[in-house]
């Protein structure tokens, strides 16, 4: 049998966070951000690709004027014997003297965000903060200051709402675990 299934819901074993819980928390985060960044004209920077659903829902709940941009970085590939992380899609606007709020779907080791913070700090933003929907602190290598945090995920392989397995399942409106046979395939 091939995966993902034609109906990806068939691959899900259990729901960890449902749509309603996620949307409620995003509304709360949006209210906090709207309050903290009033009169600051911030730029929200989404780190592609998993951030897309979170960014879309967060934006709809923000009440302040702000700009949106996206950035993408290369991912470690074990087959590459050498190399270094690099930006594969840079920002389209200058962040100098602007208040920047990184929007991330998940932070795990902190390696990617650490690189982004180092890289964008030299562009002299007025401030640089982080909003993450899902935190996985269990394997954190780099201490990352999180200004806004949605949920702490259990230490399980989960998919949905931006979180993927080999690029799939990001479009699920909830976060859930995969069935054992699917996990054996993707995990």
């Amino acid at each position, binding site marked *: 049998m091939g995966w993902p299934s034609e109906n990806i819901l068939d691959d899900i074993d259990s729901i960890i966070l449902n749509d309603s819980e996620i949307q409620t928390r995003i509304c709360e985060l949006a209210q906090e951000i709207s309050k903290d960044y009033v009169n600051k004209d911030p730029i929200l920077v989404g780190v592609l690709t998993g951030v897309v659903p979170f960014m879309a829902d967060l934006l709809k709940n923000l009440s302040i004027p702000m700009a949106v941009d996206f950035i993408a970085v290369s*991912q*470690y*590939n*074990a087959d590459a014997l050498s*190399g*270094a*992380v690099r930006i594969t899609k840079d920002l389209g606007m200058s962040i100098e003297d602007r208040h920047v709020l990184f929007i991330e779907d998940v932070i*795990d*080791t902190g*390696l*990617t965000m*650490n*690189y982004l913070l*180092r890289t964008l700090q030299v562009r002299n933003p007025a401030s640089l903060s982080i909003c993450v929907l899902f935190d996985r602190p*269990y*394997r*954190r*290598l*780099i*201490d990352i200051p999180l200004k806004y945090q949605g949920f702490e995920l259990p*230490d399980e*392989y989960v998919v949905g709402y931006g979180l993927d397995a*080999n690029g799939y399942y990001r479009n699920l409106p909830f976060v859930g675990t995969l069935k054992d046979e699917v996990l054996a395939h*993707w*995990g």
Partner: protein
Amino acid sequence: MPDDPARPRPIKHSPRTAEEIVFSHPSEQELARVLDFYGIEWQYEPVTFPLEWDENMVVTEAFAPDFYLVQEELFVELTTLRPKLMRVKKRKLARLKELYPKVNVRLWSRNDFERFLQRFGMSDKSQELVGKDAVRQ
């Protein structure tokens, strides 16, 4: 680091070049590559912490965490031992934290490393990287 004359002090080893480092397990080498990829400054087994010693201050048990992340001031011990074989390792770590409470050390278990590989889409390398016994534990 403790400055207690009644017990041996941690032994700091001279930094080694990349060519001089001999990793005791392929998983350590992979983690080193990932750290290099993200520009994280690290050292391999830079400090040996005495854990037990006799009346002559001769060290009878010691522990050298695998990695030290310089900017983070964080030691990382990576083990691919199966959970049931982790008892000795955990006891050593508990003793280390007891003797050196200011030392920040994190244990990455076999499960942690497998999740780490999943995170980077390297699950297919799990057997190759995790399934081997270390040269030394």
